[in-house]
């Protein structure tokens, strides 16, 4: 790849402002994560001119910059999910290491996100070019059809204004862009369906040896819940990382995986090598991240990219309530707060930061809202961890973070009374729960006084035998869970920081408690020793029916600008267009009224394809200089299958 192709053209703030004054931009997109990148790629492919503002620097677009993330990670004593990404006071990000147990009634302001409680939420996102896809795990599940109508079917949460069928063609497009490795035969369960003859772009990743050991022990286990029998089967997950291309993809045309980026004169292979480090950074870039889409958008020559530009205010035109401009602060160095303030104009504006930052920006802009729902209905997946030691070495700590799991508690009548959940078998052992494997070494040496052969053997027994189940429990919309802003809490550039108000409902807790119950059955069947313990000192601690638990955030922030059927019950319509401002789109997982038991990225990516199609049609009515339809079809490809 030539240098010209591998880096994106960047514009200066002055030229962006100048261009925008000259009405160059059809769309101004805030944020370079997966939502913004997909929208930019779709719009530019159609001949539209796009300006993208990114709060972070864009150093990682070069190989050296990417390598510096890796070196940061190797050298960082903490290996949390934002450890490779440098602290930037001008666009801070939450870190799980900032979270500690809350004192009742006292807001915790240590981290970027102010934790107002009652429970502390340790979820994070990444404010770098490419957004949180830089550290995401890339398990990439479709939602179940039932998940779109949980209010109607189970009397909980909120319904979507659209159905699985409406989203199905866009799921395909998202799976193409991300490059999903999975086998249809293994994924069509509990109502998930595909267009006839559909295959994923690449074959499914092989399961880990650990998966096989677990499957042998627990496949066929039966649980009766609300009168229905749930039979357990360990299944592989679809993965947003490169595997073996499926020659039957796209009616036999096959699929060409997108390899590593920012590799000027570096020929990196694109296939997953099992580095066991999807989170926080895939060292070989086999895992999809949004920079792959961004670079494709930039190749059209119609994307102007402006890094180090933090959107600070959305300003409304009083006359028709449309957005007049967006104000942003541009800084020249992360080591100084010195910045300049600018205004940018466009035909339409797309907020594609993430569920927290979208809401934060809208609230900080003090815009009136018909529904009053901006920032409310904050959702995340709630994780319960259960960990044990298998009786034999299972090869833990190898493979991608997670290759298989259990889907058999995601569906059914039980959803009326308790939250459903998916289950992950973690190939990285107890890491998430205990800080393994480093914590194991510390304890073997300092507490168990091991050395020599005994030490080496103990390392094997303590680490290679580890098994951790992560139960991903659905959280339904609840207006009291929210993000707000407060003049009292500002970042280095004077922007208001997000304040999180978070609690778990009894519905969630009942699901968590049931998931713990299943873990005990699994450990028993596997002959594993259960090491799970949930200290009351843990920041995620809660009690339910007399038992102790703690939860972890799933980094799946959503719901803060939900979509619905009218301006009274929602912030955006089914195309993620603001009900209140006819040239404003709030895109991403913030638009989701429910999140089911699927990691949110695939669904939010599918939504962005739907939104892009709508924007292109809307802008077409202005009759701007768009390219021919045939070019567009080539660009968007997957929709024609």
């Amino acid at each position, binding site marked *: 790849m*030539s*240098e010209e192709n591998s880096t994106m053209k960047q514009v200066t703030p002055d030229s962006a402002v100048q261009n925008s004054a000259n009405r160059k931009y059809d769309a101004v997109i805030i944020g370079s994560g997966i939502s913004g990148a997909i929208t930019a790629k779709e719009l530019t492919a159609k001949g539209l001119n796009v300006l993208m503002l990114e709060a972070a620097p864009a150093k990682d677009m070069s190989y050296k910059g990417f390598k510096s993330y890796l070196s940061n990670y190797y050298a960082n004593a903490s290996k949390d999910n934002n450890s490779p990404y440098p602290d930037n006071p001008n666009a801070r990000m939450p870190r799980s290491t900032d979270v500690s147990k809350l004192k009742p009634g006292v807001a915790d302001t240590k981290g970027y996100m102010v934790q107002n409680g009652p429970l502390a939420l340790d979820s994070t996102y990444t404010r770098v070019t490419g957004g949180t896809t830089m550290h995401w795990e890339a398990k990439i599940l479709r939602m179940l059809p039932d998940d779109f109508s949980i209010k109607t079917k189970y009397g909980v949460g909120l319904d979507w204004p659209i159905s699985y069928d409406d989203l199905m063609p866009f799921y395909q497009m998202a799976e193409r862009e991300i490059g999903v490795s999975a086998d249809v035969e293994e994924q069509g369960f509990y109502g998930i369906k595909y267009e006839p003859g559909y295959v994923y772009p690449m074959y499914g990743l092989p399961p880990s040896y650990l998966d096989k050991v677990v499957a042998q022990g627990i496949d066929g286990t039966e649980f009766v819940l609300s009168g229905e029998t749930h039979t357990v089967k360990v299944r592989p997950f679809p993965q947003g990382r490169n595997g073996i*291309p499926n*020659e039957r993809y796209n009616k036999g045309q096959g699929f060409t995986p997108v390899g590593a980026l920012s590799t*000027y004169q570096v020929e990196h*292979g*694109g*296939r997953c090598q099992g580095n066991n480090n999807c989170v926080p950074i895939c060292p070989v870039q086999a895992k999809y991240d949004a920079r792959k889409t961004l670079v494709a958008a930039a190749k059209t020559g119609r994307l102007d990219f402006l890094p180090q530009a933090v959107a600070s205010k959305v300003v409304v035109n009083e006359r028709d309530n449309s957005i007049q401009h967006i104000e942003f602060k541009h800084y020249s160095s992360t080591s100084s707060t010195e910045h300049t303030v600018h205004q940018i104009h466009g035909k339409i504006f797309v907020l594609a930061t993430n569920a927290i930052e979208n809401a934060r920006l809208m609230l900080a802009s003090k815009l009136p809202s018909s529904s009053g729902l901006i920032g409310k209905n904050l959702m995340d997946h709630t994780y319960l961890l259960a960990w044990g030691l298998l009786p034999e070495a299972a090869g833990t700590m190898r493979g991608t973070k997670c290759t298989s799991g259990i889907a058999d508690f995601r569906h059914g009548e039980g959803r009326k009374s308790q939250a459903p959940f998916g289950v992950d078998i973690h190939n990285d052992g107890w890491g998430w729960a205990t800080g393994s494997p480093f914590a194991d070494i510390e304890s073997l040496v300092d507490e168990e006084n091991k050395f020599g052969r005994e030490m080496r053997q103990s390392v094997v027994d303590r680490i290679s035998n580890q098994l951790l189940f992560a139960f991903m429990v659905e959280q339904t919309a609840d207006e009291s869970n929210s993000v707000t802003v407060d003049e009292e809490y500002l970042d280095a550039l004077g922007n208001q920081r997000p304040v999180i108000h978070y609690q778990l409902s009894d519905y969630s807790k009942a699901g968590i408690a049931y998931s713990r119950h299943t873990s005990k059955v699994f450990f028993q069947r596997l002959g594993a020793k259960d090491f799970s313990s949930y200290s009351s000192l843990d920041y995620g601690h809660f009690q339910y029916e007399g038992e102790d638990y703690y939860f972890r955030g799933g980094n799946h922030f959503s719901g803060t600008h939900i979509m619905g059927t009218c301006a009274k019950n929602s912030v955006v319509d089914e195309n993620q267009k603001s009900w209140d401002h006819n040239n404003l789109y709030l895109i991403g997982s913030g638009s989701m009224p429910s999140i089911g038991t699927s990691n949110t990225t695939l669904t939010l990516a599918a939504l962005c394809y739907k939104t892009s199609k709508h924007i292109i049609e809307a802008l077409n009515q202005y009759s701007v200089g768009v390219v021919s339809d045939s070019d567009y079809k080539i660009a968007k490809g997957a929709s024609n299958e």
Partner: protein
Amino acid sequence: MSDRIINDISDLYHMLDAAIQLEHATIPPYLTALYSIHPETNIEASAAIRAVLVEEMLHMTLSANVLNAVGKHPDLTASDFVPDFPTRLPDGETDFMVSIDKFSPETLETFLKIERPSKTQVEDNKMGPRGCIVRNNNAAFQLKAISPKRAQEYSFYSIGDFYEAIIEGVEYLEAQANQNGSTIFTGDPSLQVSSKYYYSGGGHVIEVTDKASAIQALSLIIEQGEGHGHAIFDSEGEISHYYRFEQLKLGQFYKLGDEPSKPSGEKFEVDFEKVYPIKCNPKMADYPKDSQIFAAAKAFNLNYQQFLSMVNKAFRGEQDLLLGAVCGMFRLKEHASQLIRNPIPNEPRSHGGPTFEVTGQDTTQIDDDRCIAETV
């Protein structure tokens, strides 16, 4: 004697066998130089060697595809497949030695010679086969790609002439076959290594089924290695091996539009001190018999032989073994790195290295309860 080098199908088999051997022969020197570099240092140099190495592996696979397409299997387990280093390669009128050695200014010079854009002889050679000359040290060359099979007293003027001869042979033999209503592309198409099992940043593998795809594959080898003429970048903006290496000598990247020897891209440092001092062309005999390093070097050679056997089987129909071979390669890399970081007992200033002394027996006992190009 005919001017043409390839006159029948057995000549073509011989030349393609030789091509596979030749492509492979560059792998031990590149691999050793790459792993001699201290981790986390010399990022640009590592990336350049790695990129070339990955493409050499692709070239080996492409040559194997051509050979399979014309109905013969490669043999990576032949006793003379891996040369005894140092080995010689032709460079126009002269020749040069290729060694297993650490990354150094001298090694870099050798790499530049390996990848130097083809010197083609002026067409005044009426006596011998096309593209060949007589050398007085002809016997010193080990690789089969040096001499035409039927005229062992001659040797190719350059590696470029060797590949030109193959392309010419393919065209000639296929034209002859077509006259009789047949084709030389009689190989089993299912033996073609496809992108299903092989892909990397080093370019896409080409499945060979006819003359056009054969020439496409062979041309890709020539193009990636030497570039077209003296062009630094090819039409897709990819830099050729020679100029890739030259950047390391000059400490600066080329940009599109640059003139040879005058790069104008980003500058960088190459630190030849941040390299382990590998003994040049190490042999098993250099390691004390009862030392840990001896055992490790021996194990490496055994593993390397198993790796070649696995690739060999993959080229003979068991394509899914390529996945395992890739994993085997990753492990070889770790073993090589360990050797390279160990001083040789009684010779503390020299470090060990893999010797690549492979006997060529087909090791059927493949460690196949465990698991090419993406590994380095």
